[in-house]
């Protein structure tokens, strides 16, 4: 991918977009969590990700270190189960980005993140948790790149689609983990808040990847010719 400065800029853009999105979705996530949890998912996540974005905003560290700082900040600011699940897993997986952000390291990061969530939460697919969105997304992403040889951006778009399907899959399931499991059959028919916030985060990562990778593709594809009139391409080029 791009040089270290561009990678840093992309990661900072991504965390800022995620923080904005979770602020926008705070009421919705809280509403989902009121049905089957303790009604704090929206406020905990939006507070934590905003604090994480602020913490790294002026950083000139490399991406691995920035992502680690994001994880550590989430651990201290999010609380509940989401602190260790999001923050602890990001912190732990961040070492995969120590050599920078490439297609290969992004797969390694995604796999390490998923594994840490599985270990920490002791959950499996079908337990009505974030694992139901995360697992198909990570599997799809890895397969798209390593087997189908698709560009990372296309692979990420397919991963987001897989996460969407995973979120829908949580609705009819009975919860086996977390506060929702205490509700037993009453948890059936409700969408899992953790799977939903995982999807929102991935959508913002995709939007950031589009901003940076489409620009890169355009620059690569178009030889140094006359500027295009298409505003999308100009935006991409600016990124």
């Amino acid at each position: 991918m791009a040089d270290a400065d561009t990678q840093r800029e992309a990661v900072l853009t991504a965390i800022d977009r995620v923080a904005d999105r979770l602020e926008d979705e705070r009421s919705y996530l809280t509403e989902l969590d009121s049905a089957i949890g303790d009604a704090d998912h929206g406020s905990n996540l939006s507070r934590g990700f905003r604090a994480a974005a602020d913490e790294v905003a002026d950083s000139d560290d490399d991406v691995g270190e920035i992502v680690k700082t994001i994880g550590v900040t989430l651990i201290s600011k999010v609380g509940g189960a989401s602190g260790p699940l999001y923050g602890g897993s990001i912190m732990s997986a961040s070492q995969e980005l120590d050599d920078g952000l490439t297609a290969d390291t992004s797969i390694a990061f995604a796999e390490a993140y998923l594994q840490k969530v599985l270990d920490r939460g002791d959950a499996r697919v079908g337990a009505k948790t974030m694992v139901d969105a995360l697992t198909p997304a990570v599997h799809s992403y890895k397969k798209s790149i390593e087997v189908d040889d698709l560009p990372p951006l296309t692979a990420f778009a397919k991963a987001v689609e897989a996460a969407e399907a995973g979120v829908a899959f949580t609705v009819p399931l009975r919860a086996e983990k977390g506060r929702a499991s205490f509700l037993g059959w009453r948890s059936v028919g409700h969408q899992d808040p953790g799977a939903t916030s995982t999807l929102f985060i991935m959508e913002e990562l995709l939007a950031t990847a589009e901003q940076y990778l489409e620009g890169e593709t355009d620059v690569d594809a178009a030889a140094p010719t006359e500027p295009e009139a298409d505003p999308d391409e100009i935006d991409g080029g600016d990124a």
Partner: protein
Amino acid sequence: MIGLVVVSHSQKAAEGICEIAAQMGGKAPIEPAGGDDGEIGTDTTTIKNAIESADDGQGVVVLVDLGSAVMNAELAIEMGDTQAVIADAPVLEGALNAAVEATNDAATMDSVVEKAEDAREYHKVN
């Protein structure tokens, strides 16, 4: 002496369980780590600080209530430098057993964990 930490979603519950346990195991250092910023919940930093306070060099056994208490306690142990383990036990009965065992001069981390975990077998109505 082995230290103890009681992690609960409720600060009051954590403090209350420590009071009950301390009545029987007065000498053992026992620290509550309850709530998240005054709200119901659990918090890694609160637990990490409690583990450090309870440790006099011989290690700490951690009693936990539900769900996120386990995850935050695991993370607090991983991020800290103190030797600490979670007992797989009911939080109140386990804390009481652990406090009694910890006051024995011969107590070890293993023996405290074992006594705490004995509480899994308790029946209250026969």
